[in-house]
């Protein structure tokens, strides 16, 4: 958890490996950019001025489309967003508008927290599990494992998104759908020192 680590978005390969390390099984995944065709992030209705929420929705949709067509009835899916800086584009624009005494667009209010795009995904894909956002990948996977072990979710959609924050940088995002098995003995939080 160093500041330096925050500028390196988690790629799909790292995400698969980190999930395996906490005993989670990846059932589907998606990433962005996936091919050279991934130049511009597709706009998402209701979200403005920033690629954060559209990118999150796009990569999550890729993972959700790849999962088995027939979900067991009543499957509860949690959404765990991992982002080291959040929607830095929106935050910067709002601050600039406030400082300049300009009007803040009302839609910026709704997208000012990562939960909103999670709510969009939850409604679109009928994901009835908890919605969580944390700032680091291992924490996100630990949260996913804990929710499954606790039976607040049967599976979890873990979406890692970070916008490019330097000139010439490129957004990167990856999403995985993970499931148990339930392992009560799982040391999902083994990074926490014991007495």
């Amino acid at each position: 958890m160093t500041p330096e680590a925050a500028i390196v978005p988690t790629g799909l390969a790292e995400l698969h490996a980190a999930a395996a390390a906490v005993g989670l099984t990846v059932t589907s995944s998606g990433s962005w950019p996936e091919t050279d065709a991934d130049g511009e992030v597709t706009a998402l209705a209701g979200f403005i001025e920033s690629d954060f929420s559209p990118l999150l929705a796009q990569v999550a949709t890729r993972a959700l489309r790849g999962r088995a067509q027939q979900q067991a009835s009543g499957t509860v899916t949690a959404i765990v967003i991992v982002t080291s800086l959040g929607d830095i584009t929106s935050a910067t624009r709002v601050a600039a508008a406030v400082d300049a005494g300009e009007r803040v667009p009302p839609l910026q209010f709704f997208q000012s927290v990562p939960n909103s795009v999670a709510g969009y995904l939850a409604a679109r894909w009928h994901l009835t599990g908890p919605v969580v956002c944390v700032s680091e990948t291992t924490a996100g996977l630990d949260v996913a494992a804990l929710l499954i072990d606790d039976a607040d979710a049967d599976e979890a959609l873990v979406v890692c998104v970070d916008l490019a924050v330097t000139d010439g940088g490129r957004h990167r995002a990856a999403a995985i759908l993970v499931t148990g098995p339930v392992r009560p003995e799982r040391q999902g939080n083994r990074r926490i020192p014991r007495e």
Partner: protein
Amino acid sequence: MTDGPAAASTPTARRGAGSVVVTGAAVLSAYGRGTAALLAGLLSGQPAFAPVQRFDVGARRVRVAAAMPGRPELLTEVTRAVREACDDAGLSPSDRARSPLFLAIHTDPAIARAAEPDQPGLGPDAFTASVADGAGLTGEGIRCYMSACVAASTAIADAAAIIARGHADRVVVAGGYLVDRDQFALFDAGRVLADDGQVRPFSVSRRGLLLGDGVGAVVIESSESAHARRVPPLARVAGWGRSGDAYHPCLPHPEGRGMARAVTAGLQRAGIAAEDLGYINAHGSGTGQSDPAETNALRLALGDAVETVPVSSTKSLHGQALEASGVLELIVTVLAAREGLLPVNAGFLGQDDRCRLNLVLGEALAATPEFAMSLNAAFGGANTALVIGLP
């Protein structure tokens, strides 16, 4: 939008076998620093809302919030609260050095105005690490939760779940929000702030929410750990539940189905019936859609007990502390239950038939609940329920 599953389909919640307790707490609110100031403010029944002096609100539609005087700084105040909670729990320096921090914040307040090359170093991870370092906590296993108004309550639920499973002995959970110009501008633009200057949860003629300062920290640990240190618990974290509505980006499910599942899971983990609840500190934002949805959730999850369990939303007194709400309101719930006085649901003008609950009205209610619940909800349809038990 799609329908969520009925509460009846809630799977049986699991939890580890361990008993989890709160051994220390510290808080800042518009009533001042410290739990005594907060409790006195709550029991006064006088809302802390006043014209905002901290920054220019001349261009805003609403100009009121519950903010303490001056310009407190978030890193300083959160670090202070974490230190004070550790002091309250009697943690030695070596105890602290083995205790991780789960922190709930929106982000580092400085990041939006920082030069772009500096922004990566100002992220929530770096902020959390600074708090942990400043309070003498370990840098290992720390987390930052940013899930809007359920960030802190989710962090508390996760800490309790981890400890109950025996994966950790102790976690310090903190949250912080100080009324700031950017969030104020956003909420004003979203037209969700109460333009009559009061928060009136579950009332007719309610006009919306108002922001409020909230910084809180709690030490959560296993009963065995507290017993070994000979520290009496303030309360038990008896149960917890988290759920989603699967309904809308920012509106709650009107039938409260998601929140009902969180309440049910909280009761299941606590091993109690709805009738055992002696107080509910409601989410109670005071907005048009949220209060009826929460009422429906409580009616769905509690059945007949909803007619008798006392309910109040103390957001009507201390305001909406966003990411810090969960820890501020857990502390409120613990303080009220231990004091034997349940805070009033302030600002109430009259019965809204869509919000029929047994509200604490007029003045604080004398009661000694054995179990109490703190509820929170957020954009994205996120819901949490925390059940505390008095030791």
